[in-house]
């Protein structure tokens, strides 16, 4: 296991932007003085005339992106999740969501794996905020391959899209020749019969690790990777819940309003099942290394394993 390739999804974002930039001359990229961190620098280098640095003014950047889409461009506006979804929420809602404009929001540094910067920059609320905007697609890729696929899919899709990327390097788990990506489709990564673990982002790898540990205890866990939180692959989740009868959600996000809530929304309509929501339990994060934080807040494989065990007990 020592040789597992690790890539931060923000790196994947920058690299994918170069790919889509080559394919489509209308793709333009916006930043708010964070190009070095959002990893869009590679796009800026490849297409200097199509990279627009708006300075430290995220609300204005949101409007600039909206205007560029009205002028026929496909803008990717980039910033930290805290500022793209948090600070500029109302601009995203009114200048992009309400007119349903073809703007893509690339939000990096989501969740607690921001690490040392601490709670002010650790956005655990963005999925909740973005889900509430009618017509907004919300994606949270699990690894390099999925992150790149999400960017490509966003270009093909006509309408507003929010994609969440992380700062810390995460294992590549989708590196297989059969991998296919479609907006709104989840994937069963491991079949099981006793419990369903629905995970997104960095927690997909944690869920797979937890499933290994559970197997040693004789518990068969089904692991579902949900990249698109909205629209949610409800059928996949409900069918799995019907099989296992118990559902755990795992996300690097508040348990209020994120994947866990979306899964509960889906289940309560047609198959109410007990759900354990793993995530940030209505608390702010703190400074520390990404690894230490993930361990402390029980979002790593061991943390997920322990919480599943407790839930099933």
């Amino acid at each position, binding site marked *: 296991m020592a040789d597992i390739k690790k890539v931060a999804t923000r790196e994947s974002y920058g690299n994918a932007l170069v790919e889509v930039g080559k394919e489509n001359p209308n793709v*333009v990229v916006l930043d708010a003085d964070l190009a070095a961190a959002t990893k869009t620098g590679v796009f800026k280098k490849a297409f200097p*005339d*199509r990279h*627009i640095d*708006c*300075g430290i*003014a995220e*609300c*204005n950047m*949101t*409007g*600039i*992106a*909206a*205007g*560029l*889409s*009205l*002028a*026929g*461009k496909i*803008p990717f506006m980039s910033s930290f999740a805290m500022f793209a979804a948090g600070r500029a929420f*109302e*601009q995203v809602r*009114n*200048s992009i969501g*309400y*007119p*349903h404009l073809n703007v893509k929001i690339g939000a990096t540094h989501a969740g607690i794996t921001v690490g040392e910067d601490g709670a002010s920059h650790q956005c655990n609320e963005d999925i909740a905020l973005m889900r509430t905007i009618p017509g907004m697609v919300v994606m949270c890729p699990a690894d390099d391959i999925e992150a790149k696929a999400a960017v490509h899919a966003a270009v093909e899709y006509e309408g507003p899209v929010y994609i969440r990327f992380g700062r810390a390097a995460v294992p590549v788990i989708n590196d297989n020749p059969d991998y296919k990506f479609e907006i709104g489709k989840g994937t069963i990564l491991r079949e099981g019969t006793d419990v369903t673990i629905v995970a997104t982002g960095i927690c997909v790898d944690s869920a797979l690790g937890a499933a290994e540990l559970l197997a040693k205890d004789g518990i068969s866990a089904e692991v579902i990777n949900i990249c698109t939180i909205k629209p949610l692959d409800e059928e996949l989740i409900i069918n799995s819940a019907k099989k296992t009868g118990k559902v755990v959600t795992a996300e690097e996000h508040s348990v209020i309003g994120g994947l866990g809530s979306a899964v509960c929304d889906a289940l309560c309509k047609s198959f109410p099942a007990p759900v354990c929501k793993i995530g940030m339990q209505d608390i702010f994060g703190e400074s520390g290394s990404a690894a230490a934080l993930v361990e402390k807040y029980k979002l790593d494989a061991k943390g997920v394993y322990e919480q599943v065990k407790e839930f099933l007990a």
Partner: protein
Amino acid sequence: MTNLELQKTANEVRKGIVTGVHAAKAGHPGGSLSAADIYTYLYFEEMNIDPKDPKKADRDRFVLSKGHTAPGLYSTLANRGYFPVEDLVTLRKLGSYLQGHPCMQHVPGVDMSSGSLGQGISVACGIALGAKMSNADYRVYTLLGDGEIQEGQVWEASMFAGHRKLDNLCVIVDNNGLQIDGKVEDVCSPYPIDKKFEAFNFHVINLDDAHDFDKIRAAFKEARETKGMPTAIIAHSLKGKGVSFMEGNADWHGKAPNDEEYAVAMADLEKIAQQFA
């Protein structure tokens, strides 16, 4: 159009504003009336637009950043032929395409949805930048309120426009001096407005009478001929212009006339129409 034709048209636009807001029993007549001559000049003289082809690619764009004065925009669009003038009485009613604030999906001729203050100017900057990136030569106009410029985003956008030298962008500030809570200088003074835009690298035009079509014409010509920097027209206007009891009165920022008041308002405007006859 001659000035007389523009004056007659602006008066019809004002009738449509008052009629729409009266029928809706809500809405924003004051700032719609103060900007009626600007609206009229833009849509009947200045902008390259075609009511029969509202989405034509090379049209000039207009973003109503002060979206609450939708009654002014709607009345102008209706009088210009984008949709029937009779529909103005459906303003703000359930099922009407004439939403309380502009909605681009539903209203022919509306280039951008707006209503939340401070955002339209950013969008206008984005369109102007997009035009330049595509080597398109259409122009972008955006109308702001003088209360609206208290929003910080206006100055983020202005910094961007100046930095990017968006000379295809024309910002108009309807400086009628009043906002909901009173005089702008009493609430939180935005003055000096001209110096602020100058500091953000705009070419600034002080339009000292935004109801004088000679002066309006000269201002927009100067804006069009300005190269290398965006233009801000500070349009000194009278809130409620044309309706005696609404003029200069902040109470009519966002209130509809009752039936009696409506009759007086229409009589006022009819009297003005007769002066032009």
